[in-house]
């Protein structure tokens, strides 16, 4: 790739990012994503991994999630990879406040609570290299099951605390991620950018990442990124959030 081509690609990448990253709002939240994992390649085609992750919200002040996951991936073709994984999630569910019909007086308050979820996923990733730029598209079906749990709820009508059962339910989501990764010659840092759409009956959520990967001696892999997440679904208790992420993977 010549210098002019590189410049054109960089400009294109910046234009795409400028288009997809909206202007941050002061009302948006901010948080952190930290992860640490291990991975092992049994062959050129088969690899397995495990990862622990921590997330925060509320301008980095409140823990939101701790998770433990494992996955396996298999490369059917040099450009096509399939993977499957399981994640055990411990979520700090946000509080929920409902109001009376007048929209002013409180009806119920369900404080935040910690709960468990089980997540399964299968993915197909197709990639295509144009010289040093790799484009990839990952389609992931994700099923998350939340077991029922009895939690506290304050009923303002009754002026009392009462037990509230959060019913168990499953949720299917299709995640579509389009990514651009750039292998810069003689540079130890590989930048990447992606946009991911979460779809159920409609578009639920959009995530955008801008980050770099850095590998030392092929064993220690680091990743740093900025994430902006836009929540489209009104039923979701999540809000729009800016996140900073750091990850480490030990490969053996």
């Amino acid at each position: 790739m010549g210098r002019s081509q590189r410049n054109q690609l960089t400009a294109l990448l910046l234009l795409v990012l400028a288009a997809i990253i909206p202007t941050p709002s002061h009302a948006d939240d901010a948080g952190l994503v930290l992860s640490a994992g291990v991975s092992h390649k049994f062959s050129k085609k088969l690899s397995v991994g495990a990862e622990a992750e921590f997330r925060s919200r509320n301008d980095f002040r409140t823990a939101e999630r701790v998770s433990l996951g494992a996955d396996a991936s298999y490369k059917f073709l040099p450009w096509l990879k399939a993977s499957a994984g399981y994640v055990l999630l411990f979520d700090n569910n946000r509080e929920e406040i409902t109001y009376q019909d007048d929209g002013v007086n409180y009806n119920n308050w369900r404080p935040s609570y910690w709960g468990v979820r089980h997540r399964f996923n299968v993915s197909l990733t197709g990639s295509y290299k144009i010289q040093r730029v790799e484009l990839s598209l990952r389609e992931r079906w994700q099923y998350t099951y939340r077991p029922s749990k009895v939690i506290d709820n304050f009923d303002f009508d009754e002026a009392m605390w009462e037990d509230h059962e959060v019913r168990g339910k499953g949720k299917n989501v299709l995640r579509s991620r389009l990514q651009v990764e750039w292998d810069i010659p003689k540079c130890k840092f590989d930048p990447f950018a992606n946009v991911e759409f979460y779809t159920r009956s409609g578009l639920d959520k959009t995530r955008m990442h801008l980050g770099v990967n850095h590998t030392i001696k092929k064993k220690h892999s680091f990743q740093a990124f900025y994430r902006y997440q836009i929540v489209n679904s009104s039923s979701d208790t999540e809000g729009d959030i800016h996140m900073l992420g750091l990850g480490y993977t030990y490969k053996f």
Partner: protein
Amino acid sequence: MKRILHYSLFLTLLSLVATSCVNDDTDFDDIIAQYQMEPAEIKLDYSELTEAADVPVTDENDSAYNDYVENSPWNKIIYITFGGPSPVVEGTVPGVAVQTNGNHVTVMNISGPVKFVVSGRTTDGSLKFYGDKRFQLLLNGAEITNPHGAAINNQGSKSMYVVLAEGSVNRLQDGTFYTMVDEEDQKAALFSEGQIIFSGKGQLDVIAEGRGGIRSDDYIRIRPGVKINVYSSALDGLRANDGIIVDGGAVNVATTGAGAKGVRSGGEMTINGGRLVAISQGDTRLGANDDGDSDTTACAALVCDTLLTVNAGVVKLKATGDGGKGLNAKQNVIVNDGHFQAVATGTKEMKKPKGVKIDGSFYIKGGYFYSYSRRSDPLDVAGATSIAPGYITYQLTAKLLTIAY
């Protein structure tokens, strides 16, 4: 250098994780404390009440002149004593006929002011009065139960002076089912077409199981010194079509019937003294209106269809049933002085419970006012609210309003 960098990064991450322990919930502590605040305790009060001397009106031009039993001559006296298969009737008065059927006594009075002194006990008896002449009913240890209707029924439209003999305890009770007489009302265990004026220094207990406790199709006046306890498991406890005046006395009213009111005044109600405690425990009643459509009637400790004025005394109201109101005033309420408390702790399945609900305006100029609603605003005023300056306490929370002068 690299090691220092790694350690610094590790410590930074560690501190970020460690500081992520703040709860991001809304701070509801104060609000929940307000919601969970227990209201003032209101219960039937049988304690002795110290009252100022009851001075009768002596000015004949005063509209209340005729409400004072002292202002009529009572030299015509008939004694009715229960205790046997039929009562002992002593004394004769021209123009007064007393008939007995077992212990059911019917009096026809066309004479004028006559005093009936009633005592003794019957479990199947009653007193019924005809004639448009005022009369005095001196209860001196009377205990009358009528399983088929009202214990005392005055069909006359003139004043019935119910005088409770000093130190006496009297008891009136109706039955679950009333045997009705054509073109005659009997709306309560103690019923009168005319006004009822209570006086004396005795006690009257009224137990209503079929209909109301005490009811007048005219007005009711309660004078200092009396002790009246009404317990109704059916309809309203104490009710008057044309108004209620409480000058004094210790009055307890408890109702448990669905839709029943502790006290209901169809006309102006004025409280000049004494102590009135009304507790309504019933839920909202589901019925039908005149057009046959389904309709709901909520309970209330006190309902006043027109002006309610509190000049002095103690008024304590409590509703515990679904949709129950402490006070449900259809027009204006004026608190000039006295001690007023209303509490609503019921659910709101069919109706909204409220400590005080006023369809007109609310004026407070003195005294003490307290209203608590567990499941809604403490004070609901459709019209204007006027709080005169000079109060020493004004406390308004989600559930409670207190104003004290």
